[in-house]
């Protein structure tokens, strides 16, 4: 007996149009989720360094819960569990976006906290001594500097979240992996199709890396 495996280029090429239909979903879930996650991250990240414990504790609880549980469990919980609570179904796309938002939000909170805490205390003192209020000092002096330092870890999180969306095939969102699975069910060309799927993820994440590198180079003036 002898195995003969030949990569079927034609099969790979044929799968591309069908797989491409998954990309808008992958991008929508990733970037929709990340946009909300960014807002959650700023909100909870800043709460987590507040002096008042009753603001800090809920933020810390949110961060620990969503960093400490698998995103797959989170999305299953939202899609299958939450409808019991709210008494109606949640569509898979919404569940996917919510899962990325809540999960990335927890990680971005930590990025925000780290970025803000990395700015020298002298910057705050200079702002206050000039007569700026606490919030003016924060938003015009601390935040712009902290945000620049946050760009690399934020890019990192974006790449992680894009890849995380591949798990959402389990709830039936027509994203990239789901499209691949459906296609393979008809053609039995798993090797070729998953190879193309992998290349498509790589194309998305590499483009993002390039954009981020460009922003970093342009954005870092002097910090």
């Amino acid at each position, binding site marked *: 007996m002898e195995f003969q495996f030949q990569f079927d280029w034609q099969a790979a090429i044929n799968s591309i149009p069908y797989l491409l239909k998954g990309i808008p979903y992958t991008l929508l879930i990733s970037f929709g989720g990340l946009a909300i996650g960014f807002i959650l991250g700023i909100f909870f990240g800043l709460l987590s360094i507040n002096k008042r414990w009753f603001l800090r504790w809920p933020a810390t609880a949110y961060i620990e819960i969503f960093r400490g549980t698998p995103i797959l469990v989170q999305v299953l919980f939202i899609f299958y569990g939450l409808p019991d609570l709210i008494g109606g179904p949640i569509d898979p796309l919404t569940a996917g976006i919510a899962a990325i938002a809540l999960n990335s939000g927890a990680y971005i909170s930590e990025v925000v906290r780290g970025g803000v805490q990395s700015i020298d205390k*002298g910057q705050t003192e*200079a702002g206050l*001594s*000039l007569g700026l209020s606490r919030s*003016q000092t924060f938003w*015009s002096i601390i935040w712009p*500097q902290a945000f620049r330092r946050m760009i690399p870890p934020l890019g990192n999180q974006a790449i992680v979240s894009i890849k995380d969306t591949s798990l959402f095939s389990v709830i039936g969102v027509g994203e990239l992996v789901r499209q691949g699975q459906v296609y393979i069910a008809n053609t039995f060309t798993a090797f070729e199709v998953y190879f193309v799927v992998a290349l498509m993820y790589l194309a998305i994440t590499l483009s993002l890396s390039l954009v981020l590198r460009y922003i970093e180079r342009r954005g870092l003036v*002097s910090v």
Partner: protein
Amino acid sequence: MTQIVQMRGMNKYFGTLHVLKEIDLTVEAGEVVVIIGASGSGKSTLIRCVNGLEEFESGKLVVDGNELAPKSGNQKALAKIRKEVGMVFQQFNLFPHLTVKKNIMLAPRKVKEAPEPIASATADRLLNRVGIASQADKYPSHLSGGQQQRVAIARALAMEPKLMLFDEPTSALDPEMIGEVLDVMRELAKEGMTMMVVTHEMGFAREVADRVIYIHEGRIVEEGKPADVFDNPQNERTQAFLSRVLAH
């Protein structure tokens, strides 16, 4: 004479450490008061109390008619005081994400809501005054330490303060840059600015100060005209300190 700063029986603790002890100090308008003392004596803490960067535990502090209570959450008084008191830090603390000119314009724009052209003209005038008009559009990291500190002085002056606090303004500078910063301060004093200066530059203190204060372990132990304090110190602590710093 108008009193700009009035401290009465002020005490300050860091935890259990008693860093300022029963401080009584008055600064009149137009006066230049230089505070000297060993490191850890509390001299920086003393001037940081004046604009509320440090709280104090007991006693009385009035700055330009605004009373700051001990453990003060008195935001109104604090806001008023900070508008009228400029501060220059040892580490400059310029804003690295803003150009030199934007550093100077920030507070007038945000706090006084000065229109852009006016804030811009003020910045140009001040940059000229501290001798670095040509650097206006550079970022702070592209300037030498001496230039950065002069920008920091200009930034504080842009708020037209009634009192300027200097917290070891030349201690982080290379020796060849100390002179240019002291020159600016000397000019400022000549123009009648009220100043409280913490420094190790004894030559500057002797020449520019109206009054020198020596602090030892959180207590003012000697106070007087520079000539008296430097040439004829009464307290043995002051004598010991001066013999150490003036020896070399």
